[in-house]
């Protein structure tokens, strides 16, 4: 029995069902929209006024007689007249959505539903293309953009342009995506177009069409205000954030914007574009709608442009090493020595030592270098290393090296000294070394990455067991380090 064939058939069958469901839902949405339009129309005409005969028991808008119990209408806050609103709630099925929202709140958990869906998707691999709320299809078309002289660059900097390309709205859809449209509701579509300019004067534009179809009940028919935010994962700094404008009152936003990055070619190969769609709520409240990760590596060598719909899924955890994984791991080279406290020989500035000096040991941390730090190469930055030693009984000591103008090669060899330690305290200490970027003219510095050493794990243990000699370490740097003791 050919199982793979069976699964393909199954998938096809389920897709057909979903397609029928989508058609039905589109029709239903259309009906509800018209219902609501009717109510709007009646309201616009403003039925009850002074010129007309006033009756307590007729609807102020449509003049329909109101019942005593059934369809008795609700009192309008504006004019205190009674109006019938009940009918609409019944006919549109809003009553059910409201009731359901009591158990599954729409505003706060709206995306959770989709996350559940996405989880369902990822867990059942053979249905990756077909569950109710999330559909994806890949189309590809090549789009050669004019050969622009302006795009020629002498250096090896490539420009990555991210922005939506083609309009993909309601009736005036593009021919090559018509098949998709037939398959998927045009409810919510996102398009990203990425292009890069090559040194050889041709500019190829690469389109990623991102489509999200959303359960009609999740956000209701409420006005959506949506925008797309993208990050380049090689550089997790705020600087890599790009946002589109907010598109209001549309379930089918099209963003004709170019979002640009300037990154080096080798960096591009290992980086990932993280694109997320957000609802911009009132009072700066933002609601996450969906996210997708687009690996950019393939584009470096690929000559043809591809366009594809990407499924928007749940939030994915930021990979610890981010985009730095493929371009080489960020590392910090350190030498550690535990010795007796001697005369002060401060090679670096030490501040913030808040250890009571009742021990006579000194832990010397010599920072010999770092490589592959997640920073942009062409910007000079002030990198320094902050060491935080957490001892037993919750005591902490923080020592920083002085900022030095460095590039990605990392800081100069510097020493961090922790004085006045006792062996007992060191027994279960945790040493966290963080690489910081001192930003000029700002009060807050930015932590780039860090590494952690535990006394009860092998690394630091050997230092403690064999004092008075240097121990070399090459520590992998990760984005978020937990400085708490375990």
């Amino acid at each position, binding site marked *: 029995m050919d199982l793979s064939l069976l699964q393909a058939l199954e998938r096809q069958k389920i897709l057909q069902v979903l397609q029928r469901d989508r058609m039905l839902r589109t029709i239903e949405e259309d009906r509800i929209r018209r219902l609501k339009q009717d109510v709007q129309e009646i309201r616009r005409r403003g039925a009850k006024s002074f010129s007309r005969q006033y009756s307590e028991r007729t609807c102020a808008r449509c003049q329909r007689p109101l019942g005593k119990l059934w369809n*008795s209408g609700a009192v*309008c806050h504006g004019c205190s007249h009674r109006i019938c*609103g009940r009918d609409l709630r019944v006919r549109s099925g809003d*009553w*059910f959505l409201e009731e359901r929202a009591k158990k*599954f709140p729409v505003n706060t958990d709206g995306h959770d539903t989709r996350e559940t869906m996405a989880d369902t998707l990822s867990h059942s691999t053979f249905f990756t293309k077909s569950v109710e709320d999330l559909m994806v299809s890949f189309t590809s078309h090549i789009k050669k953009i004019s050969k622009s002289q302006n795009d020629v660059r002498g250096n090896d900097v490539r420009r990555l342009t991210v922005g939506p390309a083609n309009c993909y709205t309601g009736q005036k859809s593009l021919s090559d995506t018509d098949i998709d449209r037939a398959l998927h509701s045009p409810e919510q579509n996102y398009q990203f177009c990425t292009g890069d300019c090559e040194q050889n004067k041709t500019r190829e534009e690469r389109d990623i069409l991102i489509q999200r179809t959303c359960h009609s009940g999740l956000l209701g028919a409420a006005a959506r205000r949506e925008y797309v935010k993208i990050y380049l994962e090689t550089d997790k700094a705020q600087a890599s954030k790009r946002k589109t404008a907010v598109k209001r009152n549309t379930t089918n936003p099209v963003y004709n914007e170019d979002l640009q990055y300037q990154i080096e070619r080798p960096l591009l190969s290992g980086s990932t574009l993280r694109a997320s769609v957000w609802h911009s709520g009132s009072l700066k409240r933002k609601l996450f709608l969906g996210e997708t990760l687009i690996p950019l590596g393939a584009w470096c060598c690929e000559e043809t442009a591809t366009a594809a719909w990407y499924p928007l899924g749940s939030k994915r955890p930021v990979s610890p090493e981010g985009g730095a994984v493929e371009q080489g791991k960020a590392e910090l080279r350190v030498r550690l020595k535990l010795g007796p406290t001697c005369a002060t020989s401060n090679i670096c500035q030490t501040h913030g030592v808040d250890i009571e000096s009742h021990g006579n040991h000194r832990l010397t941390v010599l920072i010999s270098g770092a490589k592959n730090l997640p920073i942009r190469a062409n910007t000079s930055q002030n990198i320094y290393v902050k060491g935080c030693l957490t001892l037993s009984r919750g005591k902490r000591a923080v020592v920083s090296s002085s900022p030095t103008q460095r590039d990605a090669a990392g800081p100069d060899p510097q020493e961090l000294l922790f004085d006045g330690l006792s062996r007992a305290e060191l027994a279960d200490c945790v040493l966290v070394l963080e690489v910081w970027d001192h930003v000029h003219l700002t009060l807050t510095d930015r932590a780039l990455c860090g590494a952690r050493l535990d006394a009860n794990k092998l690394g630091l243990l050997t230092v403690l067991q064999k004092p008075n000699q240097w121990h070399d370490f090459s520590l992998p740097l990760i984005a978020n380090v937990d400085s708490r003791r375990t």
Partner: protein
Amino acid sequence: MASATATYGQKESSDQNFDYMFKILIIGNSSVGKTSFLFRYADDSFTPAFVSTVGIDFKVKTIYRNDKRIKLQIWDTAGQERYRTITTAYYRGAMGFILMYDITNEDSFNAVQDWATQIKTYSWDNAQVLLVGNKCDMEDERVVSGDRARQLSDHLGFEFFEASAKDNINVKQTFERLVDIICEKMSDSLDNVDPAVTGVKQGPQLTEQPTAPRQDCAC
């Protein structure tokens, strides 16, 4: 024949001339007769051959009930465990459920409790459920007595029917009863916010314009 039904189904689903739309889900163990039950109701047809449902399927039927035209989207789910992740995704959209077991199959009856738990987990709080013992035409092979089922349905708070898709017993009644109790639930839900009934003064928001500012009133 096939094309005739297809056209019929097409017409049913694209019809907008109705008052409300209800979504109903049929669940239960594999081979209890969920698909047959739906086919009997929607198409008035029956085939004794067993064809396992792939994932999910649905049929649309418009009925006239309580002076209203009600369009039913009835989802038929696969009973097999391996489709569970897909089928449970549809629980949330359903207003009512038909939980089915086979009166000649002890296992399918024993699983009822589990299915009820699934509904509780994945559906809204007021989910309306009917317990249906299918294949009541096969009296000779019965292993689940009506009393036992009634006891269980009382315990779970569901209404109970014995039915036969093959002999067309209680099929229509089951669906109509389910529609009725969903309607009741709907009225309850509306009354809870309706001032004229609950007596709350000026309490409710107008649902068509929940946040409409004062000056927008066109009355």
